[in-house]
């Protein structure tokens, strides 16, 4: 019941993380590790697809806060897409749409990344 899974894939030059399940204080460390892994690999254009994210608490929201500065310093961004109204409502309550671009569909988000800025191999 409390499952949380992250899978990685690429959509063009954008690194996509698909989140599935319940993101709370128990599972937030997994998301933290996932961001650390991407930063280590210098993948700074990160799209978080929330289509199958059923739940988020402040522990999960805090992870996005923790990495946004490093990601932007690296020339990239964290964008989000496909949120259910339930999950979007929590992001919205905290004013996150001021800080993150959130899109209805993944392909719209992918188009918004400025891939020229990123210094990857």
């Amino acid at each position, binding site marked *: 019941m409390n499952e949380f899974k992250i899978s990685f894939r690429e959509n063009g030059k954008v690194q996509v993380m698909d989140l599935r399940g319940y993101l709370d204080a128990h599972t937030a460390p997994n998301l933290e590790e996932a961001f650390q892994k991407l930063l280590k690999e210098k993948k700074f254009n990160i799209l978080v697809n929330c289509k199958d994210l059923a739940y988020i608490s402040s*522990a999960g929201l805090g992870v996005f806060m923790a990495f946004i500065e490093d990601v932007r310093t690296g020339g990239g961004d964290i964008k989000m897409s496909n949120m259910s109204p339930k999950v979007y409502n929590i992001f919205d*309550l905290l004013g996150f749409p001021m800080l993150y671009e959130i899109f209805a569909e993944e392909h719209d988000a992918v188009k918004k990344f400025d891939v020229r800025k990123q210094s990857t191999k």
Partner: protein
Amino acid sequence: MTSSPKDKATKKNLRIPSQTEKLVLAREFVANAARVFGFAEDDVNNIALAVDEACTNIIKHAYHYATDKEIDIIISMKRPEFEIVIQDAGNHFDPTRVPVPDMKEYISHYKRGGLGMYLMKKLMDKVEYTKQPRKNTVRLIKYLHQ
């Protein structure tokens, strides 16, 4: 519209160990009761999240992630009031020392932490804290509007 035939509040209790993997039990316990009480699904979700945040704060700040402690969750239902009392025996966590952030200012400085407290206040109608000897109490209240 029907009114409850009982004058006394209906109560339900759950005790969980102070472990983050048990948060799901607290959420489900409260969500089920809120649903039966008559809340719409949005409110059910909000109440469950507020309880998750309260329990997470206890695990983090009162018990400092010690996994052998206990958290008591007591629901009292008397229309229109749905009350959840959450108790721990850990270090007193004084929420009044957590400033309610101006979220614009807050997120522009990429801060984290303190978000749970902010959410609880947004999601519930009332949030109260009391400290007794060896016992901290958080009281969350949501009113059912019909």
